[in-house]
């Protein structure tokens, strides 16, 4: 049996808010609700990175959430796809160059499907996910790694461990 074919029939979603304004998050929620209902495509929202196939990210990645984002990404099993929902997620959007954000998710992790719009409409989000599913079909089990975390690494209390983990992953790729 080809697992790839069946994976596409029931992809599970992990949603992470990396500093968005919630505008795109409530549209994702609207997708899960009856009017747009992505459950008919077998898509379920589960807040568990180990079980998820699709990572839906919103937000320009604030400094405090960047290592959580990278950690969630590394915890997901291969193959996986990332969908960036919203203009600010794709490029920083209106938050570009603000002092506490990194400009867009693709500075940190590889993105497969970009959904533009501020806020992205539910139809657009569904299309972005559908495109990502096509990519998912052709992905192998090769491990994908996040890019290097930008900015110097500081150690403070419990946050140190996480940072170093993310840093180690990016060192291996270099």
């Amino acid at each position, binding site marked *: 049996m080809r697992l790839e074919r069946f994976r596409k029939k029931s992809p599970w979603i992990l949603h*992470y*808010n*990396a*500093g*968005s*304004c*919630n*505008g*795109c*998050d*409530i*549209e994702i*929620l*609207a997708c*899960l*609700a*009856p*009017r747009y209902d992505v459950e008919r495509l077998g898509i379920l929202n*589960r*807040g*568990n990175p180990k079980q998820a196939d699709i990572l839906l990210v919103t*937000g*320009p990645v*604030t*400094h*405090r*959430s960047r290592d*959580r984002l990278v950690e*969630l990404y590394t915890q997901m099993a291969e193959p996986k796809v990332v969908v960036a929902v919203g203009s*600010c997620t794709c490029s920083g*959007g*209106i*938050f570009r*160059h*603000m*002092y*506490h*954000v990194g400009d867009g998710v693709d500075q940190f992790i590889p993105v497969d499907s970009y959904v533009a719009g*501020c*806020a992205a*409409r539910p139809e657009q989000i569904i299309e972005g996910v559908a495109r990502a599913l096509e990519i998912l079909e052709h992905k192998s089990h090769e491990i994908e790694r996040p890019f290097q975390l930008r900015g110097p690494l500081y150690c403070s209390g419990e946050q140190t461990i996480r940072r170093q983990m993310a840093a180690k992953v990016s060192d291996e790729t270099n």
Partner: protein
Amino acid sequence: MIKQLHIPLGSQHAALLEPLRLDFSTENERIVSVRSDMGYVHRGVEHACMNRFDFKKVPFVVARVCGLCAITHSTAAVLATEQIVECMVSERAQWLRMLALEFDRIHSHMLCLAHVAESSGYEALFMHTMMERERVMEAQEILSGNRVQFDYATLGGVTRDMDSQCAQALLAKVGALKSVLSGLRDRFEANWSTQMRFKGVGAITLEEAYRLGTVGPIARAAGVRTDIRIESSHLPYRALGFEPIVALEGDLYARNRLRLEEIAQSIELIERILEGLPEGAHLSKVRGRPKGEAMARIEAPRGELFYYVRGNGGAIFERLRIRTPTYANLKAFEAIFLGQEYSSIPAILASLDPCMSCTAK
């Protein structure tokens, strides 16, 4: 000896829409202490408004502080700025702003109710509430052209006028919502199982509500008669005969009921606005640059939203300060959590309706 367990919740969690980290210490499943970290979404919007964007763009930038109550942010920024530049806002524009605010309140309250239902295990009720909420989203699209982030309020008025056809469509939408609301109230209030789940959970007393300075539905559900719609005269709510709704118990059940009643009240306000909408221009010219300082307060779905602006005659503000409702309520959150069962935490948290992107800006 009782063993203490530390349970972190967040920053990424299935029950949370937004990144918020809460560290609970529990003894026999009861919460004995809470620590919260709410800075995950700090982006630096105030800084950008004071350095990069000129004052005409600021209402659109601050809308991106929060997507749920985007219109309240831009309206508050606009109301504050209009006090320190030369401009005449027509009566019609003010009424249209109120209209958008009330739609926003309905959709935000319904989202909160849906979220409460989901977090306490009523999946079908979640789906049902979200389905009815789509009517409001469509109404917002008819009014402004977008579902969320509609950038409706702008300096000098609103960006789009409304014709009679549009008013008819809006009336039809709220009429339909009104007819399904009683069914929704039945499920939230009269249902035996939801009553068991919600009554007496996550309560806050009147004294605590006063002492901790709570605002919005949490304060009103505990009996504090506070609503910025009667406390400030920026928007002509008095012409609509508005009176705040107050409940007494202060628990999760009272908060749900209060939100449902406020939805019904907002529907009534919308009908009154559409009926008595004055004639006039929807947009007028803005002259000059902001000089001086002003503040504006407005009732967002979660409570009091405060804006302070200060201009020195340049195109860019010297200072912009945002104080959001969740920010005022955070201390009360901690008081509410203490002594509760850990298993009801997701439901309580959802009913407090925290908005972290508002809080951290």
